[in-house]
């Protein structure tokens, strides 16, 4: 028997550790490229200010990178420690992208970041530049493979269920990699990282300009980041829109939740700007609507029907009934693999197997084959994830995205006119913008992952079944441990990051001795005040 409390605690632990990990990943994805761009300018023009920029932002990158690596370790093993049924059920497909991520991307990123830090004096300029690009490429390829894995959870493609081995097995690697969800989500997520890094660089540079410190570095960094940011912001919104289009077709339940769409209505339907959804009554207690807007927005047409929650629950009910047959046939097959009748019954209902598992949560002894109507009703309503959470997370993400786009447009205008230093209100606003991309990233994670509920693998494997059968005590222990450890981490990281920002690049003072390797005072071997 699976304890619902254990399911709940496992979900909290996964969400907490993943959201925490995702505080560091986006900045790494983007900042590696910004640093690489700065170093490129240094190598091509030979101007040492750009080397100083690359080294300064590289230093901040590393403070962030350490925690990204540390918290990533947890993620790599958490599927096994806490989601063991999930792991054995889809490991045949899901494990491969994680392994390839290690082989192709993470090894490259981690090996070369050592050289990026320690290799300044040992590598030629060109070699070091290549190393920096390999780090950037590695971190982005990492994201690609992780999102291929996630894409499988969102829209399982390229796999079939094998009743003999009782698991999903790989059918087509190409379908797995080129799943639509995986591709648009990869681009959306990595560009979100570029936006995050651009805001970070703009915000910190603006802070220096406000205090009239490190003006050379701040002005140049601000300009590069603003240009990088405006392109990225356009990209992230475009791809986000594409993802909504793809995701809306792949996961109608997520779409209904994102838009608080309870009833299927005659198109074109209105767009809810604001809604107070009531999950119990399956309606909005309040809604502010722009008429006709939603249908063209998500279907690119005026006459496509967008299924509302009512239709989706009714469909889920039918599929549960069919899925119960599939589970029953599967058990019969486990007892006797030669049972022809069971096999044909299984094949007839195979597509609904996941829905059969879904109802198990409410059935006596968690056995779907004895589920009654009340259990089926409850499970069917579970098919709609938490509408209020998703509706609002989505709006927060989109609002942040649009805000950042406007910010970058202004930033580019001011920086190209060379007036940004005089716009003190704008510099202040740049600093205030700092938390915005992180809010957007975390909200985006919530939309994607809570929106997929009640499934770990959409319509294939329900969340409640995916967990390891630990005791609630173990789960409380581990959750408390992670919260404690991560709280300490974030305090230390923020402290060091703010300290490094306050110190700025000129905290390096020349040692005066052994200036052999450097060509100018700035590039000579120098050491920071503390180290």
């Amino acid at each position, binding site marked *: 028997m699976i304890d619902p409390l254990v399911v709940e605690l496992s979900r909290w632990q996964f969400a907490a550790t993943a959201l925490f990990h995702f505080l560091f990943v986006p900045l790494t994805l983007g900042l590696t490229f910004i640093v690489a761009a700065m170093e490129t300018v240094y190598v091509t023009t030979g101007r040492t200010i750009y080397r100083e920029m690359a080294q300064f932002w590289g230093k901040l990158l590393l403070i962030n990178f350490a925690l990204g690596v540390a918290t990533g370790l947890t993620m790599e093993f958490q599927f096994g420690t806490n989601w063991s049924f999930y792991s*054995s059920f889809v490991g045949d497909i899901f494990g491969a992208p994680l392994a390839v991520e290690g082989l192709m991307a993470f090894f490259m990123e981690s090996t070369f970041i050592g050289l990026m830090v320690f290799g300044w004096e040992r590598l030629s300029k060109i070699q070091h530049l290549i190393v920096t690009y390999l780090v950037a490429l590695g971190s982005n390829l990492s994201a690609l493979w992780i999102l291929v894995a996630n894409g499988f959870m969102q829209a399982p493609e390229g796999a079939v269920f094998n009743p003999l081995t009782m698991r999903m097995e790989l059918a087509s690697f190409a379908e797995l990699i080129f799943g639509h969800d995986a591709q648009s989500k990869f681009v959306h997520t990595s560009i979100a990282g570029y936006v995050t890094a651009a805001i970070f660089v703009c915000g910190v540079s603006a802070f220096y300009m406000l205090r009239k410190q490190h003006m050379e570095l701040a002005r140049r960094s601000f300009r590069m980041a603003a240009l990088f940011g405006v392109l990225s912001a356009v990209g992230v919104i475009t791809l986000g829109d594409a993802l909504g289009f793809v995701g809306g077709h792949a996961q109608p339940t997520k779409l209904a939740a994102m838009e608080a769409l309870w009833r299927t209505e005659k198109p074109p339907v209105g767009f809810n700007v604001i809604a107070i959804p009531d999950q119990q009554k399956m309606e909005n207690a309040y809604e502010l609507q722009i008429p006709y807007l939603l249908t063209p927005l998500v279907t690119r047409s005026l006459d496509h029907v967008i299924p509302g929650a009512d239709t989706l629950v009714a469909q889920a009910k039918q599929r549960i009934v069919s899925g119960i047959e599939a589970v029953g046939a599967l058990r019969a097959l486990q007892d006797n693999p030669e049972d022809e009748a069971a096999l044909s019954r299984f094949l007839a209902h195979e597509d609904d197997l996941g829905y059969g598992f879904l109802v198990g949560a409410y059935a006596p002894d968690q056995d779907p084959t004895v589920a009654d109507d009340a259990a089926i009703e409850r499970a069917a309503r579970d098919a709609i994830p938490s509408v209020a959470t998703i509706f609002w997370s989505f709006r927060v993400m989109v609002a942040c995205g649009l805000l950042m786009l406007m910010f970058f447009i202004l930033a580019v205008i001011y920086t190209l006119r060379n007036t940004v230093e005089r716009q003190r209100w704008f510099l202040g606003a740049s600093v205030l913008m700092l938390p915005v991309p992180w809010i957007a990233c975390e909200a985006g994670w919530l939309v994607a992952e809570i929106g997929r509920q009640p499934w770990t693998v959409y319509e294939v494997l329900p969340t409640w079944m995916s967990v390891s059968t630990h005791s609630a005590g173990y789960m409380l222990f581990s959750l408390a441990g992670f919260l404690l450890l991560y709280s300490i981490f974030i305090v230390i990281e923020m402290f060091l990051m703010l300290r490094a920002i306050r110190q700025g690049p000129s905290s390096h003072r020349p040692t005066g001795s052994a200036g052999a390797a450097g060509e100018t005072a700035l590039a000579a071997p120098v050491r920071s005040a503390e180290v």
Partner: protein
Amino acid sequence: MEIYLLLKVLWWLLLGVLLMGVAIMVGMDMGVGTILRLVGRTDAERRVALNIIGPHWDGNQVWFILGGGAIFAAWPLIYATAFSGLYVVMLLLLWSMIVRPLGFEYRSKIDLPAWRSAWDWALFVSGFVPMLVFGAAVGNMLQGVPFRFEWNLASVYSGSFLSLLNPFAILCGLLAVSLSVYMGGAMLMNRGEDVLYRRAQRLVVRSGLVALALFSLGGIWVYFLDGYQLVQSPDPAIAQTPLQQVVERAVGGWLGNYQRTPLLWLIPFSVYATTLLGVAAARSGRSHLAWWLGALAWIGVIGTVGAAMFPFMMPSSLEPSHSLTVWNASSSQLTLTWMTGWSVVFVPLILWYTSWCFWVMRGKVNERDVASDEHAY
């Protein structure tokens, strides 16, 4: 379908290679963490030790991460069952390991004795504990882990956290710690000078001898341990689940493979040869040779366990017939084929650029360099 059989055995071998990679490369860095406070009495000495592995620890750690990913991809049932069945031990491993990147990156950012000392302890814990757990986990595999499967292959465990840290497991853990100290010490000899070199040298010699003693003791212990034997199982070349076999336990059963194939005795014998030669090399100052011999010793130790257990990977002490073997725990043929393809391309590439990085960063590290390098840890 014979290809499937070959793929299973190939991935069993590759898993061994990955574990050896973890043991040798990550173990080396963790060994440095473990002995950091012994080889370095002053902050400057400790910084030299940290900067010797500084350029490499992050890349090396990927052996561990890749190990996790590869087990997931090639042995999903092992990934699912081992990491959840050993939950609290895995948490110990993860919690101690995730402190390590911070120890490297953050330690030298602030020049306060209390701050640096705290991180030195963190680096000790994150070097010692993971290696202890790593060895203890292998020890548990030899003893069998208390799990069984339900009809749908959901795993169920019994037994407590403390039973996972039993005396035999601790012995295996200490063996892993001592070999990691040996490797860490050898690396410090490679790139260190003066007092650091001499202290590391002493530790290499001692830990090598301790490792040999623990290895011998473990061998005798295994002789009296319950081993597992396949009595009946489906054709190894076909897809199957752990619910289709019959397994028996017998005292000394882990020596069965050695009795059937006496040539296998060369593997444990090689551990004695390489370790003793390694200790001698370290003593006579040939530290690079000592490092490579230590790596061979690791290969011998892991090979000894693998040869004893084959085809078992994770026996069940609760329900021996549910034991996970090379035949019933692997991925599908298609997944193994794809993974083989990816590995053929990328593993040589990884070895190539890792070697290049070590080559670029070759040479001695001293206190002056560390103090004047703003990028140093």
